[in-house]
């Protein structure tokens, strides 16, 4: 029985204390492979020249990092079992092998790969296909990252491309693999394969050189000054970038527009009910089955619709969102 004297358990505070012990800022003397595909040169510079000025990682993000660390061996076991159950068998070997490539050293680039993907070509004979990096993703993100192009969707997944490509360059292999794991269901794993793109790598090497030069000069290079990116950066306050917020809001004196919006708002409850009733009606009707009900007659006609195959295209659309505040009169 809980009484007035029962001590309360502050779970949030205790978890926060656990995470606090795991937060470390580490000095970084090299360009980390995992970060180099960052579009902001200034951030990459600060990661080396002002690593101790980074805003502390919040508990939410630290928790995600820790979850990934805890899941690593579990995923390793699942992947190992899956590889052995496959035909031909496959496996990941050489976990956390540090890069020791002379070219990358020249550009002060360093990192450790998750492993090499190998396939069994004959009993006991394994062929290395390429480098592989294991990435865990939330259950919301995982279904959306199915192709190489999908990696461009999120700022953090963008960096995966350059990361594995530089690993491939360092280990002199031509294929890059990303093993994408759904954190919500560790048995949902997707293997993304793409070839090493030397032009892409050259861009990363150029970026590394620019950072190295800036370190020598002691002068931060230009940043991206992006109002969507900068406020989330761990160096935001230290960098204090010149940015312009992206909105364009104006206060409109268009009374006609206001009247239209007002009327739409008034009709909105009826529109909602109308839609709900349509859904209900369609659930109760059977396709192709004509019905006479009260004063209504519902008949069906079968239509065949043929559409020409269309080329995939990308277009820009604007989606409006209208929020109405309560009337104050």
């Amino acid at each position: 029985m809980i009484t007035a004297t029962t001590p309360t358990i502050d779970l949030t505070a205790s978890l926060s204390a656990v995470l606090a012990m795991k937060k470390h800022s580490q000095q970084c003397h090299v360009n980390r492979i995992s970060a180099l595909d960052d579009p902001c040169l200034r951030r990459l510079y600060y990661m080396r020249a002002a690593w101790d000025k980074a805003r502390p990682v919040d508990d939410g993000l630290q928790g995600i990092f820790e979850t990934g660390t805890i899941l690593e061996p579990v995923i390793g076991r699942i992947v190992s079992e899956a590889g052995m159950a496959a035909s031909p068998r496959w496996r990941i070997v050489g976990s956390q092998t540090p890069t020791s490539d002379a070219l990358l050293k020249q550009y002060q680039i360093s990192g450790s790969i998750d492993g090499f993907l190998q396939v069994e070509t004959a009993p006991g004979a394994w062929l290395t296909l390429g480098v592989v990096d294991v990435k865990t993703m939330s259950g919301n993100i995982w279904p959306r990252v199915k192709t190489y192009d999908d990696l461009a969707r999120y700022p953090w997944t963008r960096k995966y491309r350059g990361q594995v490509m530089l690993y491939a360059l360092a280990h002199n292999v031509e294929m890059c693999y990303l093993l994408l794991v759904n954190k919500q269901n560790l048995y949902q794993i997707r293997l993304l394969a793409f070839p090493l793109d030397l032009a892409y790598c050259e861009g990363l090497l150029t970026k590394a050189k620019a950072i190295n030069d800036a370190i020598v000069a002691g002068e931060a290079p230009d940043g991206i000054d992006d109002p969507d990116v900068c406020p989330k950066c761990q160096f935001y306050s230290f960098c204090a970038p010149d940015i312009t917020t992206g909105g364009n809001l104006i206060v409109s004196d268009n009374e006609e527009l206001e009247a239209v919006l007002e009327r739409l708002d008034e009709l909105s409850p009826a529109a909602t009910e109308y839609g709900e009733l349509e859904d209900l009606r369609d659930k109760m009707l059977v396709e192709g089955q004509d019905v006479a009900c009260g004063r209504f007659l519902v008949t069906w006609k079968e239509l065949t619709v043929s559409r020409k195959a269309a080329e995939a295209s990308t277009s820009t659309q604007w989606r409006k969102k209208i929020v109405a505040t309560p009337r104050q009169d």
Partner: protein
Amino acid sequence: MSETFDIEPVETSSTELARVMNEGDPDVSLAILEKKAELAPRMNKAINTILVTQTYAEDWTEQGGKMCLSSAGAERVARLFSIRFHDQKAHKEEFSDTTGRGYRYIYECNASMGDREVFAQGAYSTRDKFLGFAGGEWRPTEDINENNIRNAAYHICIGNAIKALLGLRGIPSARFRDIMAGAGQDPGKAASVKRGNGTQGGTAKAKASSNLVEHVKVCLRALRPQDPAGQAALYHELADFDGDKGRVVAKAPEYLSEKWLGGVAGKLDKMCDENGIDPRAVDAGNQPDEPGSEG
């Protein structure tokens, strides 16, 4: 104490440091003002809409009948507009008080929207309670993550610029309650701040804390023991300065700003150090014996 990057220090009207630099061309401004006057009721309605949709009651702090919007709330509002932040600068000031050494970060920036431009400041110190005080005592400076102090000062600066640009400062409490209650939000969730036994340090224009005042007096007594006139002379030697309109004579320590008196305290600390004086130890020895005490 848990520290996360989304620190939201308590902000009050005393931390709202900003001034308008440019209102634009006078003729254009006049035309705009006339138009604004004509549209004032609609403008108010639009601003209410923006505040109601972009801020929460918890973003606001009430002080002396006026509402202060937190920088987090201000930054949320700013996302709707095209505001340029530029010429941003930061510096760190170190100070001493009876608690020990501390520091504050002061950010300055210019922000512009259309023709209107403002200059804003934001300051945050290790003597601000949100990060600097825990378990009933001031935290040692080394236990406070300096990046959080810097970050808080920066966000306050950005927030002040936004509030000055958009006219979101000093909204009367009654109007705020009407706006929020009308939108179905609970205005009672806004925090209330009482002045008086506030934090030490803080903003550059905040009145000096009682601890700092006491520290200055202790140092003066230690350096000029049993010599009130000498103490006063030393105080004015350190606190007075030559201003644009002649010599500025400092008022009593209680009436000086935190920044001003902090400077005096720093000089006194240095003098004590140079003379090998521990002000608190010496001052304790100078106190008259308590009635009934032994020895």
